[in-house]
C-alpha cells in the first residue's frame, strides 16, 4: 500500500484516528479552520457520512440488523462511495483532504467484532494510505469519561453490545473501547501513526498538529488560484457550518 504522495497525487490526505471521546474531531475541525483561513484548498470528509448508504446503515443500527460481516461491508460501502466520488477527484485536483477516521477505524473495529483481519484489509486495499495519520491517544479512562459524561445514552453498536461483552452498556462500552485501543496501538508502527497525547489541553495538541503539518507540507502549493470564487464543498453532516463560511 502506498500513500497519495507516493502515487503522485498533487493533493495530500490527512487522517485522524482515535477512540470515541479522544478529541480528534475537535482537532481536525480546528485544523480545517486554520487551513481554510489561509485560503487553501481544503475538503473535509467524515466516516459513515455518505448520503446514499447512510439510510441503510441507520436502519441496520436502529433495528439491530447488523452482524460483524454486514457491519463491516456497509461501512466499506460508505467509504468506497466517499473515496471514489470525493476523495480521489479532490486529491487529483490538488486538495488537502482531511478525514475524520480512515480505513484504520475499520481495521480496528471490524477485527474486534471478529472479522478476519486479512479479509478486512483485503477489502480496503483499493484505498491509498494517508500522507499523515494523527492518532489521538488519550487514556482509556479519559475518553470514557468524555463520552459517558456528555452523552449518557449509549447506542447499541457504539457500546459494542452486539459482542455480548456485558449486559451493562457502560461496562460493554469500556471493554469494547479497550479492545479497540489495543488494535490501534498494534497498528501504530506499521502505518506510521503520528501519536498525539490527547490528555493535553486542546490548544497544546493543536500547536503540535499545526507545527507538524507546516513542517511536512508545503502549504503555499495548496493556495487557491487568484480570482477563483470559493464555494465550499458541502460536507454532508456539517451543513450548518457552510452558511457561516459563505457569509
Amino acid at each position, binding site marked *: 500500500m502506498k500513500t497519495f504522495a507516493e502515487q503522485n497525487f498533487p493533493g495530500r490526505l490527512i487522517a485522524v484516528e482515535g477512540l470515541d471521546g479522544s478529541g480528534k474531531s475537535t482537532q481536525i475541525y480546528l485544523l480545517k479552520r486554520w487551513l481554510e483561513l489561509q485560503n487553501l484548498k481544503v475538503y473535509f470528509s467524515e466516516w459513515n457520512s455518505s448520503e446514499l448508504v447512510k439510510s441503510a446503515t441507520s436502519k441496520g443500527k436502529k433495528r439491530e440488523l447488523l452482524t460483524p460481516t454486514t457491519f463491516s461491508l456497509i461501512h466499506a460501502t460508505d467509504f468506497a462511495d466517499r473515496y*471514489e466520488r470525493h476523495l480521489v477527484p479532490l486529491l487529483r485536483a490538488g486538495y488537502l483532504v482531511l478525514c475524520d477516521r480512515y480505513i484504520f477505524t475499520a481495521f480496528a473495529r471490524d477485527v474486534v467484532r471478529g472479522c478476519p483481519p486479512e479479509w478486512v484489509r483485503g477489502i480496503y486495499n483499493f484505498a491509498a494510505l494517508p500522507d499523515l495519520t494523527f492518532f489521538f491517544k488519550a487514556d482509556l479512562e479519559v475518553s470514557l469519561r468524555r463520552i459517558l459524561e456528555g452523552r449518557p445514552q449509549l447506542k447499541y453498536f457504539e457500546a459494542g453490545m452486539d459482542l455480548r461483552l456485558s449486559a451493562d452498556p457502560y461496562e460493554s462500552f469500556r471493554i469494547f473501547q479497550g479492545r479497540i485501543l489495543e488494535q490501534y496501538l498494534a497498528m501504530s508502527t506499521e502505518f506510521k501513526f503520528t501519536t498525539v497525547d490527547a490528555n493535553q489541553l486542546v490548544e497544546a495538541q493543536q500547536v503540535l498538529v499545526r507545527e507538524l503539518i507546516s513542517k511536512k507540507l508545503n502549504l503555499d502549493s495548496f493556495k487557491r488560484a487568484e480570482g477563483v470564487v470559493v464555494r465550499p464543498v458541502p460536507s454532508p453532516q456539517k451543513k450548518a457550518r457552510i452558511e457561516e463560511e459563505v457569509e
Partner: protein
Amino acid sequence: MKRTGENQIVVPRKTERRFYGHGIPGVDPGLLAGRLIVVEGADGSGRSTQIAHLVDWLEGSGHATVQVGLKRSTLVSEELERAQQGNILSRMTLGLFYATDFADQLENIILPALKAGFIVLADRYIYTLMARDMVRGLDEAWLKNLYGIALEPDAVFYLNVPPEELVQRNIAKSAALDYWESGMDLGLSRDMFDCFMKYQTTMEQTFRRLQRTYGFHIVDGTRSTEAVNQELRKKIGAILAGKLALTKT
C-alpha cells in the same frame, strides 16, 4: 401400510461443507444440513421459471425449500434500488453495496435455512456479482477475498442462452431492454441494442472463466422449459442422493 409417496422421499446424504474463504465468523459449516442449489444465467435465460418448477417438484417430493435472490435483503435492498435508479454510485461502491445485500441474506436466510435442513434455491449467487464487477474492471483477487464469506453450493447451474436469443426474449417480454442488463453504464455503445449484445457476450465469456474456478454445470437454456427442467431435476436428484458433485473442468 405406507401412504403413497412416502417411500419416494429421498433423504439427502450428508456431504462435506465449506466456505470459499474465511466464511462467516462463528459459523460451523458442518452444522448446515440442508442443500444449496444455485441457478445462474442472464435475464431472459429462464431462471425464475425453472426455479418455480423446481420448487413444485422438490416440495412434492417432501423437501422444504427457501428461495433467495439478489437485491432482496431487508438491510439494503431499497437503498440499492434507489441508488441504481439514479445511477450515481461508482463501480466499487455498487459492488460493495451488492456484497452487503448478499451477506445479509446469507446470514439471515441461507445459513439458518440450511441449519434447519431446507433446500435453498438461489436465483443467482456470488458469480453474477463477481462477473458484473469483473466486466467493470474490478480485480478478481479482490473479489475472491470479498466473497470468501460465501458458502460453496451443492450445485451451480448456469443457464446458457446466447445473446442473440436473450435479446429476442427480453424484447418479447417487455418491449425494451433493461439499462443494467445492457451494461449501459459501461458506455460500450450509444446504441442500446449493440450495448446489450456486447455486454452479454462479455458476461458470457466471464462466466466461462469463472466456470473453470467454481465448476458450474452449464445447461443449454435454449431448449423447452420442460427439457431444461428435466435435466435440472435429474442432476438435483443425483445431488440429493450424494452421487453428483460440482464439476470442475
